[in-house]
């Protein structure tokens, strides 16, 4: 009896050591892959950063109307942001390749499905980044335009526009990630419609103020005809 137990324990210990030994090359491959990817990421990151500095990427981005990208970039530099993203991407890819080296069915299918999902993640990331930049740009344009038109609800209008673009962006990113697309579409419709409706209400209610001001101004003009508005000429 004892002999049989000992034999079974030996077999399982041998099996464990054999499986563990079989995993070791995978571990070594993972470590090597990560080390190589870190080295490669560092080199590529430096090259990308230098190339972007060379073409004055930050200034160009400002000239193209994306100056707000600098505001939420590390060190207020979009160049640094891009090089960091590239570096992290390479390290992540290296790690996934390392995991695939285990050569087991589970890790292989896991890595395959992750790699298949990567384009969606990249797409969603770019949609989010561009959407956020566009949202800020549009919000600022609306705010300045509305203030220059003397609209007292300029900030509300700007905020509403910004959230409309952000909601649209998030919905697009989620659809891209294939996360509950049905719910996302429904939620997006409700949210977007809600924002438009509340903006319409706010603008509609706010317009009454403008009309009453205009009427008040007209009444004043009639009441005191000697009050002549000076014609200012700017050019």
């Amino acid at each position, binding site marked *: 009896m004892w002999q049989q137990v000992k034999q079974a324990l030996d077999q399982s210990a041998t099996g464990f050591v054999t499986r563990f030994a079989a995993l070791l090359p995978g571990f070594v491959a993972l470590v090597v892959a990560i080390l190589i990817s870190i080295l490669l990421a560092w080199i590529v990151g430096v090259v990308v950063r230098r190339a972007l500095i060379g073409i004055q990427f930050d200034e160009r981005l400002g000239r193209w109307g994306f100056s707000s990208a600098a505001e939420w970039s590390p060190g207020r530099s979009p160049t640094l942001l891009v090089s960091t993203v590239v570096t992290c991407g390479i390290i992540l890819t290296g790690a996934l390749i390392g995991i695939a080296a285990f050569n087991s069915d589970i890790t292989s299918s896991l890595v395959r499905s992750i790699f298949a999902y990567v384009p969606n993640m990249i797409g969603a990331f770019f949609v989010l980044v561009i959407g956020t930049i566009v949202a800020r740009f549009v919000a600022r344009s609306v705010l300045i335009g*509305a*203030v220059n038109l003397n609209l007292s609800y300029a900030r509300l209008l700007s905020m509403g526009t910004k959230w409309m673009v952000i909601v649209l962006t998030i919905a697009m990113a989620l659809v891209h990630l294939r996360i509950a697309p049905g719910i996302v579409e429904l939620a997006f419709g409700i949210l977007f419609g809600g924002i438009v409706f509340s903006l319409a209400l706010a603008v509609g209610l706010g317009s009454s103020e403008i009309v009453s001001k205009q009427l008040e101004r007209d009444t004043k003009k009639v009441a005191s005809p*000697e*009050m*002549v508005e*000076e014609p*200012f*000429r*700017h050019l």
Partner: protein
Amino acid sequence: MDEAQGLQAEQVPQEPVKSIEQIDAADLVVGILADLPQDSVAELCNSLQTLQGNPRIVVLQSFPATVSTTAASSSQAPSISLLPWALEGQNLSSAPLETVSNAYNSIVTVSEKIGARGCCLVVSRLESPPSRWICQLTGPLLDGTSDFVAPRYAFRKFEGLLNSSIISPLTRSLYGRRVQNPMGPDFGLSQQLFHTFLSGGAQNGDRSSGVNMLAALVPRVACGNFRLSQAYLGARTFPPADWTIVSALLSQVLGPIFLAMEKNAACWQKARNSTPVKTLNDPTPVPQTTANVEIGHLVNSFQLGVRDLQEIWSLVLPPATLLELRKLSRLAPEQFRLPDDLWARIVYDFALAHRLRTINRDHLLRSLTPLYLGWVASYAREMETSDSLAAEQRLERLAVAFEAGKPYLVSRWRWPDRFNP
């Protein structure tokens, strides 16, 4: 008018010159961009005939709807060729700066090609007849006493406010020349000056860097030590004001000025104290209105800006300036007054933010609108019952404040991160 029409009739030649290609040489080229009536054009041509030295003159007219061609040729009188002038994308009302700049580019190219000694462009519709000013604008170019003749318009206190509040004092402070209208637009240029522009412009990046020629003229004259003079042209007639386009106007006009400022930074940082510019003829007095001014809507715009644009202004203006603006926004319209030194610092800070691209440049310049309207309100409140002399003195004080604030600009320009009061 009858006399002018008579003169025009006399000047119609038998075999008119039909295009600029047929002209091989001339002494002076005059471009007319303004939509002048034909009798004014005839009077202008007639006045040009009185220039000394019997110069050969080419007059290019961009609105030749009713003109075929006119040329005066007589043994005593100088010869004048009046030709139609085709300018691409011409739209003085929607893009005045670009159109005028293109016209200057075109006229200096033509002048260079035919070897003219000078050229000038008539852009404004003026109240006084051309006989009073055209010779002052062109004569100094031909007799070699001046390389650049800038216009001085008859001063009405509420006209040319963008020029009075920003362009003129800023130019005076930066380049040290007291030019009343640095953006003209009615200028006269000598051959030496436009030759420099054509040969050096491309090298120095005037065109490639997007610097508008109209904004680059006075800086080039001041930095190149060209001889500069001014001529009184009388009062201008203006199209009706449109409040909705003030922000677009600020963006269109100030953008090129700030770009030129960036390009000439090495020059203006060396300039110290301004000097007056020689004025060639006598001013024509114009009547001033002294009626009450409604500034409530201007103050409202300013207050709305202070309330809603803090987020943007905080990226451009230092905290001390923002604090002062907040205090001003709490004043009633009758007490509202924007101090000159504060206004000068605001303009300098916006120029710096334009250079640093702190935010999108169009956003930046448009966000200046409430502040500019605040200045207009403050100026209008002070000047509503004043005469033109008092208004001129007021603007002189503003220009002095700009000059006094120049060290602030130079410090911030050189060390934008370190010097931020």
